[in-house]
């Protein structure tokens, strides 16, 4: 029998939710790391470690790069490195740049809206003060 009923999400801990959130942002982050030029896998991982707090299991990034390449968002080239073995460098294609721009805009709108919504949750004192001020204003206007 198919189970269509929603399961109670007992094991949906905040940690797991955060992991899902990070995973979802990783595709955009991978594209963003290539905005200024080509990089190889490990450089992308190090770049993300330095510039974002998207700490990840290192393996996660490679299947994402593989999929983005299959979708035509990235190109790749094997380059013989000084290290003595070739490295696979990735670069953004034009559709990849366009998609990243769209993602960045959507992300900025989304994050902006949520930040406003979450302000009272994150800064309860400030919110309380402002609501007291609002009440005082209303009373004065009467």
């Amino acid at each position, binding site marked *: 029998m*198919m189970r*269509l009923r929603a399961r109670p999400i007992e094991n949906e801990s905040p940690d797991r939710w955060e992991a899902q959130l990070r995973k979802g942002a990783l595709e*955009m982050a991978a594209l963003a790391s290539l905005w200024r030029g080509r990089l190889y896998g490990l450089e992308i991982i190090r770049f993300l470690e330095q510039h974002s707090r998207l700490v990840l*299991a290192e*393996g996660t990034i*490679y*299947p994402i790069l593989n*999929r983005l390449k299959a979708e035509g968002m990235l190109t790749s080239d094997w380059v013989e490195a000084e290290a003595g*073995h070739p490295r696979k460098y990735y670069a953004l294609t034009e559709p990849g740049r366009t998609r990243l721009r769209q993602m960045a805009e959507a992300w900025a709108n989304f994050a902006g809206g949520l930040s406003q919504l979450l302000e009272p949750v994150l800064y309860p004192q400030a919110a309380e003060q402002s609501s007291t001020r609002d009440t005082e204003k209303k009373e004065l206007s009467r």
Partner: protein
Amino acid sequence: MTETIQIDTYLSSLRTHLGPMTLGERDEIVREISSHIRDSAEQSGGNVETILARLGSAEELAAQYRDGVLIRQASRSISPVKLMRGALRLATKGVSGVIVFFVGMFGYIIGGGCVLSGLLKGVFPAHTGTWFQDGRMIASGTQLYIPPSPAHEVLGMWYIPLMLTVGSLTLLATTFVIRTSLRISQRWQAKLSRGA
């Protein structure tokens, strides 16, 4: 020496678990992961065990590569096996996938059955056909015992082209439905990941 063995074991396990991908794709992935391990070892000087642990198990890594590839390959294929594998993968993602899987299975069984029945008419002409009695259909297909009179077979040798046509059209329609569903699911996923 032990480290080399560890790396080789990891890479060969990865290659094995990449199963449904093409040989070229598997080579490319193993080459890239191998390059990652060498670079990590050189840059961080860390031991191989830590580097492999940070990559995640070979099985998990392969599963991440396989997910999506199967659906992508299947949506470009006309092979019922590949399409059904793609549909099965889709079925793990939600109820609509389960429906696509069952529609596919049903379509292939009906279509394949019609084609087979048409061919069997050539081999067992007397035992294969569509029988009517008192204006009602009482049997169709290949029968072990021919329905006795007054039941009569109505199609004769027309049974062959009719069944082959109906069967082929059903198979084509099934292929079309699964491929379209797989493509829609890909577009839907791409849209989701674009945040649209």
